[in-house]
């Protein structure tokens, strides 16, 4: 049992109950601790239920009762099936307290970091690191920058830039703004620091032109060209205006004439050009034709030359030629046949080899794709291995980060031992059950046997009973015997039942004795006395 208690108390601590280290079992828990533990668990399980309850037991007795009954009601609302009331908290028995606390601890929400729902790996570790960092910073109150200790300065980095940087920046901006103003202003006469007249002049310089002088390159060029044009016109116009009209007219006429002449020349040139172009194409075509005709004619000439050579003996030559033609035709066909004997097998061989190569290529490409698949698989396996390695590393890190004092393995081992014991007990129980069942069976069969024996005997005796007096007596005795035996069996059974009841009662008594009735009785009595005193005091108050 103490193992269970130790686990229970260990799990109460994270819920916020400061259980002193000397407390090792539920028996050692004071009512204050029980109340605090229950309230804190309630708050963790269901904040709306637990919030109105105070974890500290108030000094006033009636207040204590109220708190205890509220707590009991809250527990019942949470679904606690057992018997619970104010006495569970104030006059706790070890058994009830353990049941209640076990119930509450089971209801406790699982801590995130223990649940394993969180994804392991790098991102998980990072998130956790961020979380701890934020929690750490939230825990520290904000302190003005000047009052920070070095650690705090590191923690609370201010967003504001350093003051010297701000100063530099401001100075630069001011200079930049001042520069155009200074250029626009007339130089300030030495004298009193601000002469109103000078000021007006200074502002007028900017305002008069509407803006500060800022000419684009375009306006500049425009300006220049304007001036040039003006100069040129003046220069031209400088010749005098006297007899210009007549001269202009004649000049114009002459120019127009020249223009017309030039136009005509251009037109004729164009015509000539076109003609030349056409001539060129014609000549090109002619040349091409000529060249072709030449080729044809050369062939014809050669043919005719040969024909003339053969002409003197035309008849015989014709016959000869015919023969030659036929013979060469035959020869060519036979040559083709010979060639075919070489060509055919070679072509077949080529096709065969080509097919082989194709199939080899197909095979190799299949192999290649297979290889690629394998490669891919190996790569993915490597990645998987790496991932697992990382997972292993993070898990190891996590394991190292876990508090050393919780020797989980020992607990697990003990739990396993307990489970083993339970299993052993269960086995024994089942063995006993089997025995009981066998016994029951035997009893049943015996009863049946008896029943049958009796009925047979009864029948036999009954037959003879009418004739024989002795037999009649025997029959009576038999009936009596049977009845008495039945009664005896019933009595034995009743005894068994009563014995069982007695055992139950004894157990109950033992339980009651174990729950320290004399101590709680004393406490109840003292509380009762205190209550009476309080009541009396309260009753006295209005009277005063």
């Amino acid at each position: 049992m103490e193992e269970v208690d130790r686990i229970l108390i260990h799990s109460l601590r994270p819920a916020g109950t400061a259980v002193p280290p000397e407390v090792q079992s539920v028996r050692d828990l004071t009512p204050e601790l029980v109340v605090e533990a229950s309230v804190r668990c309630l708050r963790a399980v269901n904040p709306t239920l637990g919030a109105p309850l105070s974890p500290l037991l108030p000094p006033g007795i009636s207040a204590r009762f109220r708190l205890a009954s509220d707590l009991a009601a809250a527990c019942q609302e949470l679904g606690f099936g057992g018997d619970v009331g104010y006495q569970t908290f104030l006059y706790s028995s070890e058994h009830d307290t353990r049941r209640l606390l076990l119930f509450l601890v089971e209801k406790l929400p699982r801590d995130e970091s223990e649940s394993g729902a969180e994804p392991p790996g790098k991102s998980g570790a990072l998130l956790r690191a961020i979380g701890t960092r934020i929690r750490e910073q939230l825990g520290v109150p904000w302190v003005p920058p000047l009052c920070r200790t070095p650690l705090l300065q590191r923690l609370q980095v201010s967003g504001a830039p350093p003051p010297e940087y701000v100063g530099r920046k401001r100075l630069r901006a001011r200079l930049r703004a001042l520069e155009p103003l200074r250029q626009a202003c007339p130089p300030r006469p030495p004298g009193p620091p601000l002469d109103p007249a000078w000021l007006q002049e200074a502002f007028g310089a900017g305002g008069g032109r509407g803006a500060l002088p800022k000419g684009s390159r375009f306006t500049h060029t425009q300006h220049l060209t304007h001036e040039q044009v003006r100069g040129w016109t003046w220069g031209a116009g400088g010749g005098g205006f006297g007899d210009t009209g007549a001269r202009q007219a004649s000049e114009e006429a002459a120019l127009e004439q020249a223009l017309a002449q030039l136009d005509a020349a251009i037109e004729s040139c164009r015509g000539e050009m076109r003609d030349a172009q056409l001539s060129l194409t014609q000549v090109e075509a002619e040349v091409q034709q000529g060249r072709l005709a030449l080729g044809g004619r050369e062939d014809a000439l050669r043919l005719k030359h040969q024909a003339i050579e053969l002409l003197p003996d035309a008849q015989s030559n014709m016959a000869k030629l015919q023969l030659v033609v036929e013979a060469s035709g035959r020869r060519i066909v036979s040559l083709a046949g010979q060639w075919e004997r070489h060509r055919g097998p070679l072509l077949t061989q080529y096709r065969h080899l080509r097919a082989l190569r194709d199939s080899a290529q197909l095979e190799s490409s299949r192999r290649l794709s297979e290889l690629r698949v394998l490669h891919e698989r190996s790569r993915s396996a490597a990645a998987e291995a790496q991932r697992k390695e990382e997972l292993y590393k993070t898990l190891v890190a996590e394991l190292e980060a876990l508090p050393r004092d919780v020797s989980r393995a020992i607990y697990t081992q003990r739990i396993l031992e307990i489970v083993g014991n339970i299993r052993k007990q269960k086995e024994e129980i089942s063995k006993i059950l089997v025995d009981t069942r066998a016994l029951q069976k035997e009893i049943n069969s015996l009863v049946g046997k008896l029943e049958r024996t009796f009925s047979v005997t009864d029948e036999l005796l009954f037959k003879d009973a009418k004739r024989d007096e002795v037999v009649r007596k025997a029959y009576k005795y038999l009936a009596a015997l049977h009845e008495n035996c039945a009664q005896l069996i019933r009595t034995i059974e009743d005894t068994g039942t009563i014995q069982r009841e007695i055992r139950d009662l004894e157990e109950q008594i033992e339980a009651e004795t174990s729950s320290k009735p004399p101590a709680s009785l004393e406490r109840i009595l003292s509380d009762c006395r205190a209550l009476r005193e309080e009541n009396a005091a309260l009753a006295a108050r209005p009277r005063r």
Partner: protein
Amino acid sequence: MAEPEPQLLLAVGLIEKDTNGDALWVWCYPSVTAELRSLLLRKCCLTDENKLLHTFVFGQYKRSWFYITTVEVQDSPALKKVTHFSIVLMAKDFNPEKYAAFTRILCRIYLKHGSPVKMMESYIAVLTKGICQSEENGSFLSKDFDARKAYLAGSIKDIVSQFGMETVILYTALMLKKRIVVYHPRIEAIQEFTRTLPALVWHRQDWSILHSYVHLNEEEVEALKACTGYIAGFTDSEVNSRPDLYDVYVNLADSEITVSPLVKEAMTMGKLHKEIGQLIVQSAEDPEKSDSQVIKEISLKTKEILATLASLTEASDGNEKPTLNSEALKQKRFPPATENFLFHLAAAEQMLKI
């Protein structure tokens, strides 16, 4: 024909597509240059990715014509590893019907025997005697296929019914030896259309301007550019963005004719053109008239124009060819568009004085 038929056949080749999916140039007689081989592999539909089968295509490259017939092989015992094959004929003349018939015969022979030797016999027979026996029935006689027939094989009426009055643009472009590019995604449509176009200038009887199947390949484009005036067919719509290749662009699929801005001036249309256009349309729409009659009528009109032009020429200093007297042309006071057309026509007909 009084003159013996000149040797027109140049070469025969064989392209096979096998079960490996390769289109291979497997056999030829006589030798064919590597440049031409790659060109013919490009032309035969076996190297195409889209796997469309064109049974017969023809075209011209550097003044020699190629004719390709492609056959699919279906459970032939002689050709086990071959799925398709193409017979390629190179010849000097334009005659699709003749060479289609001949290549078909060669195809049947090869399909049956699976050996080029039998094909070779037929080829030599046609080369030396102009005749060969077909596998099934009858025989192929080279003389049966007249060049004139080939020139008249296309239907000019179809062209006019598709383009109407705009046919006169094609007529003008052909008369002035301009460069015409025809686009259609289907090679058969291009071939049918382009082979008919030279009939509009029947007086020249020149089918060498026809390049009915050109790829936008560097060598082919260079060879095409070396010609003065041509009709080129492309299945690649990319050709639209090559204005250096055409003066007149015909989008056959959308029935659109575009005149390049560079030749707008030379191709200015006037009253004369309207006249010709009306004549063409009227003649072609007459159901009584055959295609050859329509061509004849157009040819008559052309001759009329050429006669007008001839009247303005003079035989000059010992040159056997008469040359155009541009002064006389100007004195005639034709409308400017007509004068312009006549002048350009004179250049096309090589009648300018140089």
